[in-house]
């Protein structure tokens, strides 16, 4: 039988899914153990138990000076920046996607511009953003917005263009105006796609957020990671990385659930 036709059973599939996770953990444990047995003060690969202790401390114990549990403050601040940035990007992606997709005049005017805009590397203009918007919240949010909006606009406008011509003509024969076609035919059909596109752009959004925080901030997950780097505090860094991964995973899960829940008609497309 050909390899492409051999399929794992359920237990085997589950086992295979766990293998890479276990392999990474085991490799880390072995490496950590080897280094620690040579030098008990080694900071590069702290023992898993050390990481667990550090994580417990970070999640529960307050800062010595202010008494605030910094990890939660970092999380709140970062998620707020991410939320506002992605929210603004999603909204403008939706509006411009609809306009470009439905109106030939807007398409003629903006489609090329957006295509060029999406080629600008967002991190390269981060210094400009710091100069223009200062080092506060605005520049970080704007970086996320600039980073993912062109992708969202292009994806959503293409999705609007892909709506079968028959549906648009049908709506016209039912007396729908351009506004009604936008609101009742195009908008609901690209909403599940918007959620999908936001899920895809969350990766870049985190990247831009952490980059901006690393360079200039006084609170935030990215800031903390780059701050403790100076002390080689691998246990803190790893805790934060795992925490960010978990957050990203949960956000993705929630968005997927939301999309299935709100748009049952979209079916297998999600």
């Amino acid at each position, binding site marked *: 039988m050909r390899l492409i036709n051999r399929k794992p059973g359920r237990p085997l599939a589950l086992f295979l899914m766990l293998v890479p996770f276990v392999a990474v953990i085991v490799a880390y444990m072995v490496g950590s153990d080897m280094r620690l047995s040579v030098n008990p003060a080694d900071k590069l690969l702290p023992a898993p138990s050390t990481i667990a202790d550090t994580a417990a401390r970070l999640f529960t114990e307050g800062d010595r000076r202010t008494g605030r549990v910094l990890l939660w403050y970092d999380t709140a601040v970062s998620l707020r920046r991410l939320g506002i940035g992605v929210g603004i990007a999603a909204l403008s992606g939706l509006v411009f996607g609809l306009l470009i997709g439905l109106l030939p005049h807007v398409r003629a005017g903006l489609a090329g511009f957006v295509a060029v805009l999406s080629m600008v590397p967002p991190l390269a203009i981060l210094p400009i953003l710091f100069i223009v918007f200062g080092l506060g919240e605005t520049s970080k949010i704007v970086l996320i917005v600039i980073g993912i909006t062109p992708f969202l606009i292009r994806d959503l406008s293409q999705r609007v263009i892909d709506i*079968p011509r*028959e*549906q648009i*003509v*049908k*709506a*016209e*024969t*039912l*007396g*729908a*105006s351009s*506004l*009604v076609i936008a*609101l*009742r*035919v195009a908008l*609901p*059909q690209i909403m599940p796609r918007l959620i999908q596109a936001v899920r895809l752009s969350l990766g870049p959004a985190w990247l831009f957020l952490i980059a901006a925080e690393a360079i200039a901030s006084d609170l935030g997950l990215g800031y903390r990671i780059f701050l403790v780097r100076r002390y080689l505090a691998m246990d803190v860094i790893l805790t934060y990385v795992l925490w960010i991964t978990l957050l990203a995973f949960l956000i993705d899960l929630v968005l997927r659930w939301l999309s299935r829940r709100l*748009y*049952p*008609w*979209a*079916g297998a497309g999600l």
Partner: protein
Amino acid sequence: MSFVTVRNIFQSYGTRPILERVNLDVAEGTFVSIVGASGCGKSTFLRLLLAEERPTRGEIRIDGAPPALEPGRERGVVFQRYSVFPHMTVLDNIVAADAFTRRFGLLFGAERRAARARAAETLDRIGLGHMAEAYPAALSGGMQQRLAIGQALTARPRILLLDEPFGALDPGTRLAMHDFLLELKAGTNMTVFMVTHDIEEGFKLGDRLIVFDKPRWDPTDPNAYGATITYDLDTRRRDEGIQTLLEETNVHRPA
């Protein structure tokens, strides 16, 4: 007398002629079947009737009104596919025929309740009452087309255009749809144009059957000439067979 008037239509895409010298007069309440080989402009003709495209030359008038610039409520249409809105329930698809005329495409209060009640009646009439809250994806092909026809008729168009509406259906469902359409036709005095590949279907449903073909044919350049109506048959007068034959004027005979 003539409800739909087609005068001297020419349609070209770029330099390529598709239709030439198309003339047609159709009385109100006539069911016109349109047949022809692939690429003979019958779908183009339907798009012209729909006003989705405008002819290069000539004009189409419905009840003497000026030629339309874009599709509107006076024209109803059912395509082979994608004729219903996948994101609306079956009931909302019918309600849309009323709601879409509003500023934001929505109905409120008593109006909304009345429209939903009317839509429920329509669904019962077309045999989809039990599927009102389902989404079109859950419907069979025949049910979807019944819904599309019901939706188009709810807008009370002057003419109904069907672009191979049963082309994607299996033969059994197709026959059921014929009965459904004949019933509807008996109940209303709708003027219908139906493009079909199936000549039997054309004869069975149509009061009139028109054939699109290329009267002139250049073997070295098959796209040099456009198509026109070459046969115009009254299918209700079977005893006399072919009533109007445009062959004399339209078909080029080799010398």
